[in-house]
């Protein structure tokens, strides 16, 4: 637990920053100037008396401080510099090299000094020091993480200990739950530091005992929960630390472990706060300050909420990411499966039937239609759907498209429906579709050409007139003479004429030998089915 921290280069940083923060002066690391006033200012209050005896060792240690004693017990060094300043009177007094950084460091540990460390604080994750430690390496690790001198951390623990043993508890918990740094960093601890730290520890314990026995523990009842909550918050907020996040995202395998640990820590934080609440209530119930207690309860619950925020945020984010990844994977699998079941199968069939051009065309056309529907159809993939068209046709256009597909499949012709407008299917329009289908079948069977044009137009009605749905089925085949149709061919007579007539529609056929055929079907729309 001491100074020259090669990882962060902390001593120089402390030196440079300290005068700035503490004295508000130029951060000029000039030997004399900052050292003296800072030292003087620090002198009075804090720690003057009790350690007077050790002052000499403190002074002695200033010599080593240049090489970096920056991190020994705070109180001691302050005392040391205090002791050094008055006797040495002249700023230039003590050794030229030695005194300077120590003075600066000391000023850094001045009243408000070390707190704001603008340098690479977030870069150092919270770990316990492996080397250069006196007890568990906790104080040093916290100091590295927060970016202050380790002496201040130790002092903080002592003060917390004084306040209802919170310091001991916090130290213990951090010891248990904070992992050690991965690579040991070389640090040295001088004997004097050891002594200082030991003295500090004794001081804290002693003061706490005194406070406990003297019964003036009210302060402790307030500060205790506060300390607990602070430690809890520190533990949980640590989880949101950037380095941790990256590690988390990078290593999916350790995610489970990390998740459990995070959960534990969060539970710990929450339970700390709750403990704080309980302690506070027990302590205050005697006094009957119920209202105050409620206030405390609310405050503590808020603390719990704050504690769990990073955890929730991360949980939600991880969940979303995982869900997205799974969706992408599922999509990929589904597309592969669909292509396999449809396109690959059809291609295999086509290769087998390569000699039969009619069959090949039928297969290719059917597959094309299926793929188009899957991609561009209602609910198709290119529209952001899942490719599954509605099982039952509810619109005229869908029904016509389906009928056209069936005719294509059955008769190996190309039927290209062009649809303008649309309407909900009803009984009349169903009849229209069936009639149109029959007309397509006729064209496919008898025209002798391989292409059938189908045009469907729905005219919405004007104010007082009902709209109409019209279907044109046209081929460029051989045509025929309607009057000369054989008696056994019922298609045209029954399926088309009769059906249309029953539903109030009309049929017109235009044909002639060698001119192809066009069947025009017209069906009035009812009131309710305009699109």
């Amino acid at each position: 637990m001491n100074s020259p921290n090669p990882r962060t280069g902390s001593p120089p940083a402390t030196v440079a920053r300290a005068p700035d923060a503490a004295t508000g002066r130029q951060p000029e690391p000039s030997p004399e100037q900052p050292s003296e006033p800072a030292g003087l200012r620090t002198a009075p209050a804090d720690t003057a008396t009790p350690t007077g005896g050790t002052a000499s060792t403190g002074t002695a240690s200033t010599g080593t401080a240049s090489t970096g004693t920056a991190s020994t017990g705070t109180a001691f060094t302050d005392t040391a510099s205090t002791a050094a300043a008055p006797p040495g009177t002249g700023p230039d007094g003590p050794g030229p090299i030695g005194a300077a950084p120590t003075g600066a460091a000391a000023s850094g540990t001045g009243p408000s000094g070390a707190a704001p460390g603008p340098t690479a604080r977030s870069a150092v994750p919270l770990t316990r020091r492996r080397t250069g430690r006196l007890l568990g390496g906790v104080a040093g690790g916290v100091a590295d993480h927060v970016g202050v001198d380790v002496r201040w951390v130790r002092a903080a623990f002592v003060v917390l200990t004084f306040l209802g043993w919170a310091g001991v508890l916090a130290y213990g918990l951090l010891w248990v739950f904070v992992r050690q740094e991965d690579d040991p960093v070389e640090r040295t601890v001088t004997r004097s530091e050891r002594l200082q730290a030991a003295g500090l520890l004794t001081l804290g314990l002693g003061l706490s005992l005194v406070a406990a026995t003297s019964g003036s523990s009210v302060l402790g009842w307030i500060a205790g929960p506060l300390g607990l909550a602070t430690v809890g918050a520190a533990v949980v907020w640590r989880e949101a630390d950037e380095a941790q996040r990256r590690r988390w995202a990078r290593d999916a395998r350790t995610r489970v472990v990390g998740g459990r640990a995070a959960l534990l820590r969060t539970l710990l934080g929450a339970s700390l706060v709750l403990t704080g609440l309980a302690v506070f209530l027990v302590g205050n119930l005697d006094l009957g300050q119920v209202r105050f207690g409620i206030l405390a309860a609310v405050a503590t619950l808020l603390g719990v909420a704050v504690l769990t925020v990073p955890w929730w945020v991360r949980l939600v984010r991880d969940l979303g990411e995982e869900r997205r990844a799974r969706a992408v994977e599922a999509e990929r699998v589904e597309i592969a499966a669909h292509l396999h079941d449809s396109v690959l199968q059809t291609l295999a069939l086509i290769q087998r039937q390569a000699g039969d051009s009619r069959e090949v065309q039928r297969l290719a056309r059917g597959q094309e239609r299926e793929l188009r529907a899957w991609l561009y159809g209602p609910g198709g993939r290119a529209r952001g759907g899942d490719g599954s068209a509605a099982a039952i046709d509810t619109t005229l256009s869908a029904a016509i498209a389906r009928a056209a597909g069936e005719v294509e499949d059955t008769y190996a012709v190309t039927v290209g429906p062009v649809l303008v407008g649309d309407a909900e299917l009803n009984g009349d329009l169903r009849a229209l579709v069936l009639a149109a289908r029959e007309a397509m079948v006729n064209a496919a069977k008898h025209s002798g050409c391989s292409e059938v044009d189908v045009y469907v137009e729905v005219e919405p009605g004007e104010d007082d007139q009902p709209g109409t749905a019209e279907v044109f089925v046209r081929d460029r085949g051989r045509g025929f003479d309607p009057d000369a149709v054989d008696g056994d061919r019922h298609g045209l007579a029954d399926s088309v004429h009769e059906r249309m007539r029953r539903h109030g529609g009309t049929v017109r056929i235009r044909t002639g030998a060698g001119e192809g055929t066009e069947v025009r079907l017209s069906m009035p729309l009812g009131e309710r089915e305009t699109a």
Partner: protein
Amino acid sequence: MSDDGGPVRVYLVDDHALFRSGVRAELERGDGRAPVVEVVGEAGSVDEAVAGIGHLTPDVVLLDVHMPGGGGAEILRRARAAGTESVFLALSVSDAAEDVISVIRAGARGYVTKTISGHDLSDAVRRVRAGDAVFSPRLAGFVLDAFSDRPGAAPPVDPEVDQLTRRERDVLRLLARGYAYKEIAGELFISVKTVETHVSSVLRKTQTSNRHELSRWATDRRLV
């Protein structure tokens, strides 16, 4: 329908080499009619196409709609920005309305699907070269649908370009029913030249109309 007797110089743009060679073979086989269609070059990417069109100055560019790097509409924009005199005919496997409409609005003189026969394709090439528009039945259906006055639709802003005349509508309907120009002329008792005029006028309106349904319709439209 051609102007001079020289061959129609065609440039093929499609990212599938197999398809290009198929179209080239079909066009060059010829259909015994004049003028002869001659493929002067092909391109498989947007950049290549823009450079080739600028360099070879073909009469007609057969354009695939879907290509990596922007597709047919992008080629049209860039080639036209470079001041090309070539006319463009979109030739695509896609029947999606937004594709059809977007490439037409980018300046193509027509749109035919890749299932078109070699004979019809040669015919379409000659026709766009002569300055006409080529509407497949499906494109005619799209345009009719886009310009239809459904109840509740927003009123057209400028009747000159936002509405089809009755005659244009009739012509389009017959086109959608699969009629050839000559058949349309016979059906409506007008000359083929008049049919061509109507179709070109419809093309112009499709390209310039501000009617907001046109784009909305194209994206909303769900056709198989």
